[in-house]
């Protein structure tokens, strides 16, 4: 870890002021970074994947951005709400179970108590070649240096949304549930406040060093999840090598609006198998208007993985991802446990 300056922001303004107005921002390794729970930032600073000169602690803004609000129009989550706080919130659990479950199954209790929802959205991949700077081939860390994972151990890597530049997996869980429900993020930056569709926040794998469309210095302040008849009827299924404290091999966030056994609306996102939080629209349209049967669920899953590009060690994720989605769909429809 390199030496760095630490400032504590006590207002949005002071946070933004601390950011300054970077003229030629280093988007790979921003020289000024916000610090929320620190569970990701400090980890990557110790590994020297990130080496900011200045860190702005935003935990002082908790009174402003640390609330959970539920209205008829939907759910609003402040960026500084802790993962455990949202996972344990009775209203979230009742009306948005997919969100509560995705958070409750992530990381460990200790990390969930520290980590913020805003920080959670900005997770970086667990790919070893990215995290360990002694490796030489990682386009995400060093543009143009190649991708060692293509022919290395790639069991954990993605099959959807990948490119020849990068096959890393987005490791989080929460973002999947949000992407399924069509959430937007609210930000404030040097040029003012804006609201962005969360799915569009994550960039594709063509230029792996750039992960999001956040503007330099932009602060996430909250997440808005629109209400819908499907949110209550939702679940997050996460499949992994051990029962807890482990990233997904495959996961599915599913929300269904069912009427007399037929799917009026399906909202599906996939994790563990994809480069970024992955909305499975093809699967949604296969199900729309159809009865939720095993056969239709299987067809939807097949559609979701039609574009999968497996590698030597992760080919099983194509099968596992489909099975995970089928199981999640049947589970939400009450047809299996």
């Amino acid at each position, binding site marked *: 870890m390199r030496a760095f300056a630490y400032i504590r922001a006590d207002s949005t303004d002071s946070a933004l002021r601390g950011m300054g107005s970077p003229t030629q921002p280093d988007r790979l390794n921003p020289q000024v970074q916000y610090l929320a729970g620190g569970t990701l930032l400090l980890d990557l600073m110790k590994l020297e994947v990130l080496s900011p000169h200045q860190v702005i602690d935003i935990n002082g803004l908790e009174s402003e951005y640390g609330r959970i609000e539920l209205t008829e129009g939907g759910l609003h989550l402040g960026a500084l709400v802790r993962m455990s706080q949202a996972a344990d919130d009775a209203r979230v659990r009742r009306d948005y179970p997919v969100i509560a479950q995705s958070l409750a199954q992530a990381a460990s209790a200790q990390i969930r108590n520290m980590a913020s929802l805003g920080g959670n959205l900005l997770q970086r991949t667990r790919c070893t070649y990215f995290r*360990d700077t002694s490796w030489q081939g990682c386009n995400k860390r060093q543009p143009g240096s190649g991708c060692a994972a293509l022919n290395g151990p790639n069991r954990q890597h993605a099959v959807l949304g990948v490119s020849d530049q990068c096959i890393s997996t987005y490791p989080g869980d929460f973002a999947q549930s949000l992407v399924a429900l069509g959430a937007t993020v609210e930000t404030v930056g040097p040029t003012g406040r804006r609201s962005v569709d969360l799915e569009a926040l994550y960039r594709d794998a063509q230029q792996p060093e750039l992960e999001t469309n956040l503007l330099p210095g932009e602060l996430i302040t909250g997440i808005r999840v629109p209400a819908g008849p499907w949110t209550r009827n939702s679940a997050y299924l996460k499949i992994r090598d*051990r029962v807890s404290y482990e990233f997904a091999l495959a996961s599915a966030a599913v929300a269904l609006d069912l009427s007399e056994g037929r799917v009026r609306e399906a909202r599906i996102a996939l994790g563990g198998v994809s480069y970024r939080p992955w909305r499975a629209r093809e699967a949604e349209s296969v199900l729309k208007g159809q009865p939720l049967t095993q056969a239709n669920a299987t067809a939807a899953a097949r559609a979701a993985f039609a574009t999968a590009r497996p590698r030597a060690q992760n080919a099983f994720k194509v099968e596992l991802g489909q099975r995970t989605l089928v199981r999640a769909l049947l589970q939400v429809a009450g047809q299996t446990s």
Partner: protein
Amino acid sequence: MKGSEVRRGYRRVDAVLKVTGRARYGSDFDGGTSPAHACLVTSRIARGRISRFEETPVRALPGVLEILSFKNLGGRIKPGQTFPTGGYMGSSVAPLDSTTIWYAGQIIAVVIANTFEEARAAARQLKVEYIEEPPTASFAVGHEGVDFEGQTEKGPAVGDAIGAHTAAPVKIDARYATPTQHHNSMELFTTTCAWKDGKLTVWESSQNVYGYQYGLADQLGIPPADVRIVSPYLGGAFGGRSFLSQTTAVIALGAKMIGRPVRLEASRADGFTIATYRAETRHRVRLAASREGRLQALIHEGWEVSSRRDTYKVAGVDVSTRLYACPNVASSVTVCAADRATPGFMRAPAEVPYLFALESAMDELAVALDMDPIELRRINDTQVEPIEGRPYTSRALMQCFDVGAERFGWNRRNPTPGSMREQDWRIGFGCASSLYPTFMAPAAARITLWADGAAQVQTAAHEMGQGVRTVVAITAAEGLGIPLDQVRVEVGDSSLPPGPVAGGSNSTASVCNAVAKGCQDIRERIIAAAVAAAEGPLKGMIAREIRFIAGYLVCAAGREPLRTAIARLGRGALESYAENSPHGTPAGGVAGMYKGQPAFTGGTFLKDRIQCAFGAQFVEVRVHERTGEIRVPRLVGAFAAGRIVSPLTARSQLMGGQIWGMSAALHEATQMDAHHARYVNTDLAGYLVPVAADIGQIESIFVPEEDSLVNDLGIKGVGELGNVGLNAAIANAVFHATGLRIRELPIRIEHLLERLS
């Protein structure tokens, strides 16, 4: 002293110290004064040499005091020998000796700075370039008729195994694989070195303080008397702290160069390459039986990986060929050299991989015979090992199976694979044998009994959490007839009387027998005085009828307080220095102990007999029909290991072993980038071990066993027994649940997925 009240005190003597943070581990020391901090720089290539090493800019960084490398330490540290060749080292590569790279993760420099953060930041800045050669990462594929290139040695054999295998009506011929594993003790590899008046003190968690003392003195070329190793508590070891790692000598020299104590806390990732590990293995097992299930042939071939420098092997055919009655046996072990660090002991080094293969094959044979797997083992049970015909001192394998089966509910098992279900989960029951050789080594202890009836025991045994302080205290309390809390135990220091390396599950047997001897000596001296006294209640009594109970000397005619009896000897304290030399100790074995080279005996090493502890492992697994996750709701193990000195700590050992066995079956594996011969999952997020949520119900049952031959106290040792065979039991249960035979560990979802409905 059976049945005295101290036995009922089922507790750890150091429990309160541990939970209040007062127990000091190797990593808890700072060398007496504020130490300088070291950080390692390790090689990113696995084979080749350093071509450029730019230290000047790093020397100018804040806080940097010294940089150690081949430039200033080349030729300074003597290359030691590894254990199999009579040495003390985990590897024969001398640290920081030259520009040659033998494996990825080899230490190439150590940066010493005022603070840990400065050392780490500076270490990152060191620019090193290499000339790289393509490495061999693991088994090199062989040619026609040769599985993997390597050095082959024949193992135990009898009869005509190939002929009998060919001729038999029912047979199995299968290949198995186990992965690379690392100990990953909670406590990191930390070492703190300080020099004072030419003498070196090292605070470092070690399960072999005498070995470290002599080995380090040898590396540095100084008299052993000038080296002291302090390691009162270890935060786990599992074999990983048996031999000197690559760090200690370097840190010692660093401390000398800067004239100040130096402390190194190596990172979790460094721990994967600076010490030893369990190398991957491959097996071919051929079994043949008569239709009634009697074994006709057993052929076990093993392949192991070692480093280019050292031929380390675990050669588990030594036990796998002796577990069952069989007239025709053959075996071999081939060691294959790779560009890797030298492997070493890891909990049940030989038995974990070799019994995975054998006990999986036995289950396959039971299926081929359409026979219950317990019955197959019963038919082939024996009290005499089949190779040289030596008798087992005691062997309660089938009692373990019977007790375990009853407790587990084995009779509820429908033998048809895939026939037991609950909702979307398929249920599987599996079992396997466990065995661990009863090793012993010479040990010494000094017992002091003070005038007030309190005692102290000093011995260089090692408290790794297995409870050596507790068993020593119980043995002394029983031996002297005093309450447990009146015994003070000092272990883990090379200035104490020698104890053997805490390996091979030998500590309790080796050390307690020495302690018991010392207590007996003290008792005899007190009794002699008491019966010869001019007056007193024991005057003229028969010496051997006098017992020491609860602070009294007791015989049928009367009793006398221990304090009174001690006072009669007119001394402030009675001291006894005891050495125990177990049955079969070779000439020079006791002398070797004083140089950290205790002669191991027992197990399969004896001419006249064979001694092992046994167990039966039972598991229930559940496999999700759709997504293939494997859950383990129940583990039941029944173990016969002679006399159990401390039920609480023994049960913890077995339970921990069972959990580790499950971990070996389902979770643990060090993954490698084969192109670069480098490990990739070098943290506890990537190197999976079970978390609490993975662990269901665990039962560890002691099957009573008395063995008066193994040693005076009848102790067999339980440190490693619990995790042997469990990996096979899980694979067998997975087969029972799904009909899929997985012969490669760890068993992962992808192994099952394709074939689930």
